[in-house]
């Protein structure tokens, strides 16, 4: 059964007198445990599509069923509840609260689903454990590296056991090596059963997913399964080997 089912989704923005059509009848199905990348140039409508799938916005037309439930006409509060329980967001700019330690950032979705404080703490620490940051639970974001911050954000996305994880350019603010480690984490989570939808414009990153959807002018222009996705862990170890070789070479040259 499909986790996400879009039928004839359209979105029109009214900007004063101008009407901008961002999406024109998008049909899309994403199944449980898929790892999908959405690609497209800016202005292709991919952000609008992501906002609608992520329940941050409502379509102007069409029907969106999430987990078998029509969510295209829900109220603001109902959408907030869906975002809280069904969706986990990972942003390009991490969007962590700078003032509080990691675990307090991670527990945030639980605060809004009225989980008692003690349970929130336990689950926040567990989620940090899943992204290998158990030892950084008490650190504030400014005491963490970019990659660690993004992993805190991923732990926050995971903490309420959502049906889908949305990642909007999750590696956009990271160097390529750290970006790869984030992909490795996504692949691992995917292996553990998570459904992930990711937006990116980098093909290198996109190829870590199992399926790529291309968007152009508000329509889906391509939908491909990737037969041999890149394996981030292998790339990372290759990269590490390479660096070690280069380092040895450099040392030899110098001495």
């Amino acid at each position, binding site marked *: 059964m499909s986790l996400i089912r879009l039928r004839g989704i359209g979105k029109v923005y009214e900007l004063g007198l101008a009407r901008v059509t961002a999406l024109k009848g998008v049909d899309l199905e994403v199944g449980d445990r898929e790892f999908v990348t959405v690609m497209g140039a800016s202005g292709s409508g991919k952000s609008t599509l992501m906002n609608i799938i992520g329940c941050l916005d409502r379509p102007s037309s069409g029907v969106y069923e999430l987990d078998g439930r029509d969510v295209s006409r829900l109220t603001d509060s109902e959408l907030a509840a869906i975002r809280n329980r069904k969706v*986990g967001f990972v942003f390009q*700019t991490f969007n962590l*609260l700078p003032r509080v330690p990691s675990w307090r950032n991670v527990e945030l*979705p639980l605060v809004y689903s009225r989980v008692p404080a003690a349970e929130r703490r336990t689950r926040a620490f567990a989620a940090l454990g899943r992204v290998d940051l158990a030892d950084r639970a008490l650190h504030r974001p400014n005491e963490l590296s970019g990659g660690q911050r993004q992993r805190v954000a991923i732990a926050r996305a995971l903490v309420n056991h959502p049906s889908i994880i949305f990642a909007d350019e999750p590696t956009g603010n990271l160097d390529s090596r750290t970006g790869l480690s984030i992909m490795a984490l996504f692949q691992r989570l995917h292996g553990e059963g998570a459904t992930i939808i990711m937006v990116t414009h980098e093909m290198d990153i996109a190829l870590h997913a199992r399926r790529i959807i291309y968007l152009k002018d508000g329509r889906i222009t391509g939908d491909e399964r990737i037969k041999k996705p890149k394996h981030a862990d292998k790339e990372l170890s290759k990269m590490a080997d390479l660096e070690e070789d280069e380092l040895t070479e450099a040392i030899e040259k110098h001495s």
Partner: protein
Amino acid sequence: MNIEEGIRQSFDVLRANKARSLLTMLGINFGVLSLVAISIIGLSFRGFIGREMAKYGSEIMWVFANNRAYARGEPRTQLDGADVDYFRRTLPGLQYSTTFYYINARAVARGRGQSVSLFGVDTDYFQIFAASRRIAEGRALLPDDDLYRRPVCVVGPEIAGLLFGAEDPMGKRVSFLGRAFTVVGVTAPQESTFVSDGTDDTTIFVPQSFVAARIFGGREKRYYVLLLKFSDLPSVDNAVIRMENYLEKKYGLLRGEKRFRVMKFDTFIQIADNVLNIVSLLVLVISAISLLVGGLGIMNIMLVTVTERTQEIGMRMAVGARRRDVLSQFLIEAVVLCLLGGFIGAALGAVIAAVACTLLAWPFIFSLASVVIGLAVATAIGILFGLYPAWKASRLTPIEALRVEV
């Protein structure tokens, strides 16, 4: 979002912006401070008045020239012996009546000179002022002292020290007004008092006739002020009417004004109370203005906060915060800011009031009600001025909040 969570987050924000939060609070601080301080001071003042009233008894009244009726330098009409005799004979319920005369003189004891203030008083004086002019050692002046013109005196503790050093002043001689007086009593150190007759711990009390003779020479003695004490309040009210009638009939009006003022202790206190009420009102106005300005400051800083944290609002909405969660969060932050300011203000206000009461020797009466009202007002200010920024924050949609570049 529950309130506990909102408060926890408010303190996170406060910690991150200490200086800014403190400055923003100042208006609220000052507003609540003045509110609490004036309430406590007012209460303590009334407590003090109550104590004074109990000390003297509120059945005291006095008569003196109505200065308002006279031009500058114009001779005042004064009571004479016949008036005073008449009052003493006819006023029902009268217990004591006295007057006093005051001159500065040079006193010599053990060969050393000292300028002193001499109060010519009588026995009734010590009766009426029994509470504030307690005799610590020896005796007060007696009717006989005046009758036989005995050269005796009662000295204040401070002047006793100045004249006789560490020695016991009792029975010692001190010379003034051209003759030697024997010390027969020493007054106890004076407590702070609301009604003062001009005496203090440096005063020397002597039988009235010595001082009166110096002032009036051969002329008939006049009474600048006549103090009366009655057995009960109705007698006081009755006496006021009778005395005013008598004085008006005998001396007439001066350019339409009464020549004398008859004042009850009660009335006197009332006047002081009215002054306090006016001062309280002024302070309350100041308090209200600073609370208003403080509230506007809170609103301003909350608007800045909402703008600064637009991305945070977007993120919170993305992870499941509803509009009302965002609204309550920012509202709670504004209220916490105001309440904290209120707490600091109330504490400072109480301290200031305590210091004032200590300095004035008033009993410190803590007013819990004023603190509660102060904090309630601070909370109301927080809600009133925090509502608009919080509402503004809650009206953001998650996409536009997330899209904002900071």
